[in-house]
């Protein structure tokens, strides 16, 4: 079952499904998610809140909440299925080969330890280095994430740092063991716009330097364009569209993707032109109890919805003319000639 390492992708997620067991019964929060990630590649997961982006990341790390479980599919990391890996094996992978940074840098660091201690902790855990070496390495890492005066700041506590600096420290911790994959779950949502660009530049540079693949989870189309080569649009626990960022943004095939892109004013409208109404996608993400039904879950919000949309789940199909651009929709744009 394991392909030779040279041809197999770094990460191969096949038909991953995740179910939550709640008091109201079992709900499917991730429905048949598949994607691959090559070494050093950057991919973005895009979608509204509650679409399963973060849940996909947690499923990859084996960090699903207690009520959740992988109900089907595989997560092949270098050919090894992580959904059946032992907890000890997952612990060795986490922070070492697969790392994650979170949305809230203000609360992602332990308030009672210095940042140096927190970077050292992960080095000691996975690299078995002694205290002096861990400290030296911590200073190097702080320099790498461009914290000024790193040798002095290494003894600072998290509350002495700004939000952007804390996110840099999180990145330093995540990259301390030079992982193969870095999952960034909305890393800049809580930060100032000016800081956002710096963090993205830092992630891009360090990712390229360490040949680390980056999975960026976001709802910010601007971030997608800055950060990734490929994007995967998720809706209600399903993958609705996937392709090269340039292709998808230029010619979105799924009505949902089209709606998301239309919601970003500066991509579609002229700068300076007055926009009377900002475009939006009507309606909301369906309640989680509807996830996993055999119908198009976007149908209630879709102008093109027809009978088949309500009666069966659309299958994934490739879009002619674009390699690796695929969509799951009964009536994708482009088939009848996009505008």
């Amino acid at each position, binding site marked *: 079952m394991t392909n030779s390492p040279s041809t197999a992708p770094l990460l191969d997620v096949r038909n991953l499904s995740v179910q939550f067991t709640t008091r109201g019964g079992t709900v499917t929060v991730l429905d048949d998610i598949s994607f691959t990630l090559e070494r050093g590649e950057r991919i973005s997961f895009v979608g509204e809140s509650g679409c399963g982006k973060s849940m996909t990341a947690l499923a990859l*790390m084996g*960090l699903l909440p*207690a009520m959740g479980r992988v109900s089907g599919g595989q997560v092949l990391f270098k050919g090894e299925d992580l959904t059946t890996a032992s907890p000890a094996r997952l*612990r*060795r*992978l*986490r*922070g*070492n080969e697969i*790392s*994650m*940074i*979170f*949305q*809230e840098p203000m*609360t*992602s*660091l*332990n*308030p*009672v*330890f210095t940042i140096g201690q927190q970077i050292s*902790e*992960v080095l000691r*855990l*996975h690299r078995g280095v002694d205290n002096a070496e861990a400290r030296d390495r911590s200073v190097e890492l702080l320099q790498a994430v461009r914290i000024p*005066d790193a040798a*002095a700041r290494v*003894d*600072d*506590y998290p*509350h*002495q740092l700004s939000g952007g600096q804390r996110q840099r420290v*999180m990145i330093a*911790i*995540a990259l301390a063991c030079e992982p193969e994959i870095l999952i960034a779950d909305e890393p800049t949502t809580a930060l100032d716009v000016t800081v956002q660009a710096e963090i993205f530049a830092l992630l891009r540079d360090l990712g390229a330097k360490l040949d680390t693949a980056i999975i960026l989870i976001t709802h910010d189309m601007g971030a997608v364009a800055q950060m990734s080569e490929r994007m995967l649009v998720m809706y209600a626990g399903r993958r609705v569209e996937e392709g090269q960022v340039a292709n998808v943004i230029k010619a979105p095939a799924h009505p949902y993707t089209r709606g998301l892109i239309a919601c970003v004013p500066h991509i579609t409208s002229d700068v300076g032109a007055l926009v009377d109404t900002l475009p939006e996608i009507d309606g909301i993400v369906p309640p989680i109890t509807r996830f996993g039904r055999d119908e198009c879950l976007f149908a209630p919000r879709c102008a093109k919805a027809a009978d088949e949309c309500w009666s069966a789940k659309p299958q994934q199909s490739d879009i002619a003319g674009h390699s690796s651009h695929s969509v799951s929709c009964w009536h994708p744009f482009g088939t009848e000639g996009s505008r």
Partner: protein
Amino acid sequence: MKPAADSAPRRGAEIVDKAQHPLREMVVIFLANRAAMVASIVLSIVVLAAIFGPMLHPVDPFEMVWAPFTPPGQDGFVLGTDYLGRDMLAALLNGGRVSLTIGLVAALMSVFIGISFGALAGFYRGLVEEVLMRITEFFQVLPTLLFSMVIVALFGASLEVVTIAIGVVSWTAVARITRAEFLRIRELEYVTASRAAGASNVTLMTRVILPNALPPIIVQAALMVGSAILFEAGLAFLGLSDPNVVSWGQIIGSNRPYILDAGFTVTIPGLAIFVTVLSISLIGDGLNDALNPKLRAR
């Protein structure tokens, strides 16, 4: 901190250094609390007296040295003598050693049991939590004095058994506080972040969650030293403490029949207990203010 960093000030250093370690901020708040400061001084005197007193005043507290019921200050006896003509000062100093030791050890013991139960229950939830918290509730509803009396009656009235008996009946509050803190902290993002960095459950419990859960536990532990001293006094008063050592409660208990003839024999150890426990309570209060961020003036 490195002195080198101070000689070469960096940008914003004067702001940053004021709020160095959260612990230092805590000490500053504690020092500003006048009641807690006075209590600390009083308690220090009591502790020093208990440690060095018996050396400076080397009189056997069990030895009859003078006529019974000598009032304080008379015939060179600072605190007088008790009903058997034993030196009250010697009894008080030696008794302080025993009372404080029992209070400290019993409190440490209940903190240890309480943290173990609370941490496991709060971290693992589910069945573990159910079982551990039912056990905690079982101990909580037992009448504590009666239960410790049974333990002492069963295993003999030695110092160790009395200490264990007090520890065993008073850990439930710590367990509940620890569990509550663990339930709160385990959901915080830095715990998830540590998990994502590969931390094991043991690491998460001991190195990530526990240090953040400590403040209310420290407060409770401080208050528990006081209540353990009271508890020991209660047992000793009832004659259930080790008869081979003097403790404050035991002095009160043995002089009880003569309370109307020689009130000082009961009043003096009573005052010692009162002052000590009050000091500990005030210190606990001060710690609570210093450790509880919600009460901090910004």
